[in-house]
């Protein structure tokens, strides 16, 4: 195998792996990954070079739209508590049972 072909193969695999790791983290740990992204963006914004500061602004996590909840697994965003609209959740509240 020639060196350019080996290099191209390595790059393609590295890119796929990086995308997969990022995607899986975003999907499975949405709140934690968003916090990490915000911390990283904040660190970049404090950097001296202007282009790094711009990159920090661009990387800031944005609030995303949520879909409906009746349409099936992994499609509703219901598992991302940080993105919820205020007052949207209906958590259980227990009161003592009347005698």
């Amino acid at each position: 195998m020639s060196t350019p072909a080996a290099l191209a193969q390595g790059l393609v695999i590295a890119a796929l792996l990086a995308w997969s790791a990022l995607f899986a983290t975003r999907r499975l740990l949405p709140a934690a990954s968003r916090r990490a992204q915000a911390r990283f963006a904040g660190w970049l914004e404090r950097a001296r070079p202007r282009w790094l500061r711009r990159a920090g602004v661009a990387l800031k996590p944005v609030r995303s739209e949520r879909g409906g909840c009746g349409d099936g697994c992994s499609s509703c965003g219901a598992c991302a508590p940080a993105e919820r609209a205020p007052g949207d959740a209906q958590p259980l509240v227990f009161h003592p049972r009347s005698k």
Partner: protein
Amino acid sequence: MSAAAGTLRVALVGNPNSGKTALFNRLTGSQQKVANYAGVTVERKEGRFVAPSGRVVQLLDLPGAYSLDAASPDEAITRDICEGRYPGESAPDLIVCVADATNLRLHLRFVLEIQRLGRPLVLALNMMDAARARGVRIDVAALEAALGVPVVETVAVQRGGAAGLVARLDAGTPAPRAAAVAAVPAEDDLHARVRALLAAAVSMPRATSAVDDAIDRVALHPVAGLAILAAVMFLIFQAVFSWAAPLQDAITAAVTAAGEWTGGALAGLPLLHSLVTDGLFAGLGTVLAFLPQILILFLFILMLEESGYLPRAAFLLDRMMFAAGLTGRSFIPLLSSFACAIPGIMATRSIPDPRDRLTTILVAPLMTCSARLPVYTLLIAAFIPRRSVLGVFGLQGFVLFVLYFAGIASALAVAYVMKRLRRDKSEHALLMELPSYRLPHPRDVAIGLWERAKIFLRRVTGIILALTVLLWFLSSFPAPPEGATQPAIDYSLAGMIGHWMTYVFAPVGFNWQICVALIPGLAAREVAVSSLATVYAMSASGGEDAVAAQLGTAIAAQWPLATALSLLAWYVFAPQCMSTLAVIRRETNSWRNVWIAAGYLFALAYLASLATYQIARMFGA
């Protein structure tokens, strides 16, 4: 009108199953889920459309409510928005109260409650086509005069069926008439006022539909009704196996051909070749082949949802569910969990009693979600012979039926134990509206199937692809040492993890390959299938013969029957996916409930697998 935005904010409210979401879809072009039973919409939904005059209308679709005196969390959302008490949201500029024209006796009561709020109001008489077909005559002008609010006719399921409502919205916001608002009587006299309105403007040949009554005499019969329900469920699982086979074979053949072609093109790049053939084509291709079975399952579910039969099933099963510690109201959330536990858990918002709601949330993951279907059908196709029983039905479909039934039975058993633990002796009467029977609309069913296909394909090209690539990496590195005698995957990270896990899972008959597949299966259950395909493809010689089509053959050759049965038992209880745990945390506001759910499901899965494996080995399987 909201001055700042320059848009008209309109809220659609009304009794459950009056067609609010169908009207919302008609007006906004949205494709929110609709079905012929109460409690489909449990949260606020928002859309917008531009009226012919150019006026922008922001439309809110709210959960159905029988009264502003909210009995359940979903009704509370509607009450709070109508009264302008919803956090971060002002009251709507206009309320459109949607009423089922075939059942005004029930629906007008809520219209009066809304009118009492004194906000701009329009009454939409929906399902006018069904009302006319049943001989119900409504004098719209008389009703409008008696009520003192504008009344329009709509047929939400017909093209142009909302034109009257759009024209009314375009004509401006009607100011509430003080005299009409003052005329709404106190709570106790609302029914008398409804009777007066009906006498003034509505003539009905009979209170209920003659066709519905005739069908219900059989469908709700304590013996015949249960037999029909069992037959319907049985037919569904037979069809899942027998109808899907040709399509499944076609997909497998296409994936195999594409895999061989791509593998040939990448022959000079060994790592990329392995990733594409062993990872992507073997892993994703195997999962993709289950699309027809999932669509056939949903074809039946959608038709049942549209027909109006499901609330009848809830009624039939109420006594059994009550004995087990659930209520008939748990039926719809549990049924939704056959698609996925997440919407099922969300649907528990329609259960008024918090203890009943918690019990339903905790047992919802025991319902067999569609993500488990690929695991079941892979194992059944590999280990259960394709032959008929009693010359009528297929053995494979029968086994699938038994697995689904095992999930239902275990949910009832767990609910019963919870009821005993909390010493609950209270009774909760089931009050549930039985909608009119309706022929499923082919367009709605087709849209529903298309949505399911999109969801499945999004999962395949999203989370399943990502986890398959990661698993391929873990199965490929580090490389085997010099002079290694085992397949390379045995020396990889995934191989090492799998071998360590066998200390825990050997008693239940799981080999290291199954152990490896269990971990990504926590993210999405179908990934267990793609992971098995990848691991077995990489354990094989690595040639073109290791692609999708062979997974079933490979496991049939290498696993004893006892292991297959044990894995099936594991997936009946399958400790649920992480998304489900996150929704339990959100809906119960408690980590304790999350640990209870995960703990009891894992314990049940392990014990069931252990018992299945050991008993099967005793019988020589």
